[in-house]
């Protein structure tokens, strides 16, 4: 593994962790979606770079899925949904930022400590990728735990899934990566459509203000 390609791969995977941290403290839904789009762009660059250095053309498909579907289609769809549901002005209680960030740092430390220790036999790039991927996965979990709004939980889940795609592409020559990323996209499309259909109906089925209050934002 020569220096430059390793450095770029390392930089991209590290940026993904950084963007995960940025997701952690966004308290407005629009900002959250924008940062998530950035997350997906970084992932797609990282996957494309892996495809380039490992000479694995099928990974370009995964990169394209990440770029088109996760960085453009889903954020735009969620954007419109937020407007339709009238929750775009909501500020979420994400807990105080300090402890959440500290917890995030702890999780990243944990994943580095675990993954670097157990992968001593694997090649350096794969080790780093796995450690970063586990960090992104755990940070995604943390985002889901600290939020109560359905839309931002989905964003948390998608960032978690980005971590999985990073891990899968980091494992050299892993089969079924493209299939798995397609399966995940279908899964996410289902959730997004699900929220949209169900939430819209709830809104217009009733004019009871209290019911609206009760259902607002929180699907849990």
């Amino acid at each position, binding site marked *: 593994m020569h220096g430059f390609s390793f450095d770029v791969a390392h930089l991209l995977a590290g940026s993904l962790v950084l963007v995960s941290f940025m997701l952690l403290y966004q308290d407005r839904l629009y900002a959250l979606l924008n940062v998530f789009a950035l997350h997906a762009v970084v992932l797609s660059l990282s996957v494309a770079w892996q495809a380039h250095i490992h000479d694995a053309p099928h990974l370009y498909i995964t990169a394209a899925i990440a770029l088109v579907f996760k960085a453009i289609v889903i954020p735009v769809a969620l954007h419109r949904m937020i407007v339709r549901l009238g929750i775009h002005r909501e500020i979420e209680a994400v807990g105080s930022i300090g402890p959440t960030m500290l917890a995030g740092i702890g999780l990243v430390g944990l994943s580095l400590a675990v993954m670097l*220790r*157990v992968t001593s036999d694997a090649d350096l790039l794969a080790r780093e990728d*796995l450690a970063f991927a586990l960090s992104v*996965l755990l940070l995604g979990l943390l985002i889901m735990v600290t939020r109560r709004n359905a839309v931002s939980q989905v964003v948390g*889940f998608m960032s978690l899934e980005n971590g999985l795609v990073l891990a*899968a592409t980091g*494992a050299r020559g*892993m089969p079924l990566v493209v299939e798995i990323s397609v*399966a995940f996209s279908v899964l996410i499309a289902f959730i997004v459509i699900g929220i949209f259909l169900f939430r819209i109906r709830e809104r217009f089925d009733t004019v009871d203000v209290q019911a609206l209050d009760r259902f607002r934002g929180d699907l849990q």
Partner: protein
Amino acid sequence: MNLLLANNVLFVLAIPAGAIGLLAILPGYRLSAALNVLASFLTLVAAASLFIAHPPADAYFLVDDLNIVFVVLSCFVGFTTSVFSASYIGHELETGRLTPLYLRFYHAMYQMMMFGMNLALLVNNIGLMWVAIELATLATVLMVGIYRTHEALEAAWKYFILASVGIAFALFGTILVYMSALPIVGEGLQGMTWTTLVARVSAFDPALLSVAFVFLFLGYGTKVGLAPLHAWLPDAHAEGPTPISAVLSGLLLNVALYAILRFKTLMALNREAIAPGPLMVTMGLISLVFAAFMLYRRRDIKRLFAYSSIEHMGIIVFAFGMGGPLANFAGLLQMTMHSLTKSAIFFTVGHVAQVKGTQKIAEIRGLTETHPILGFALIVGVLAIAGMPPLGIFMSEFLVVSSTFARQPLLAIALVFGLLVAFGALLLRLQGFAFGEPSGRTAPVHASYVPIFAHLALVVGAGIYLPPLLVSWFHHVALMLG
């Protein structure tokens, strides 16, 4: 006949897959319900033919004595549930809880779930198995939310989020297994094939394999419903249509358990990797004791039996965690008996809830007086699930307890404690349902008794006499599991 025997694996998968498309297109509830039953029956026939002959393991499918048990059990419960579902869903259509369009969707999803589960059980590839389990999960999520009440949507959402997180962990574990295989097996599909992994696992990096198992156990354990990860299970059982509660408890939990068992045998072949046993014993015991106490405070009848499923999955995981021929045998028997009994209970409960118009335990009283057949079926079912002799579950629980006493007496005390607590709770509740002053509506019920009686007869029969063929088959599988 020869055609069937030569291609039975393909039939087990192709029949449900074909039925998905057909059921999605065809209008008319009676036709699609009948077709659903027919497809499930044909799948069962194809699955049963695996007993007679099955193809050797190839790059795509792996059929051995272990998964034949799972496939046949799945297809059997899938078939009886489709019979129950035909009458249950007809009633839901009459009361207007479901529209014909939704029914079409429901039947298609039912076959999609059967396809996903059979695929997960039969494939020879850990990545494809993961995709198949995800498919089955997605189908059940959609069915749990089908009533579209606020509660049903919330249950579906919770199920979806927790199952997705679980399944994400499982995928990470799968990637780690591949990573550990990479230096030994090389790149490509071989690194994800069961048969290759089993043959060469002894040389894999033990540390990576151990971490992989932890993720796989947590991931698939979420789907099994083990205690700290069980939160989706009661909601999903209570708010969806009852046939789905029956298949969730009877099948889907087993499929996730199958994945754990496969990975456990893989771990056992690598001497230096962590032993999966203690992890499974701990989680199993926590689930058992926790669920046993939770049984006392349930107000919803389907939630009550959902917690009982957590309790039983705890016992089963505990038994497999103890390992050894006797405990494994007990675990297999317990799993089979639990699937049969629990789905019979859900069939009964479904009809009871329909005729009474409520799922609240407090409002269901005196069933033996108003609906004697359902009432007594429920009595037999609950006694069986609580572990009364001479019914099937008593025998398997007795085997679990006695084999544990011989090896780890202290664990056996906790086990027996959990079993007794659960026993008390179930009998307490049973008294309320079955006896006393009748309450609620007393209209006669149009129930399909055949699936209920078929399951209960099997459970009672197995308690009295186990056919030697079954015993030797289970014994062989128990040895395989190590």
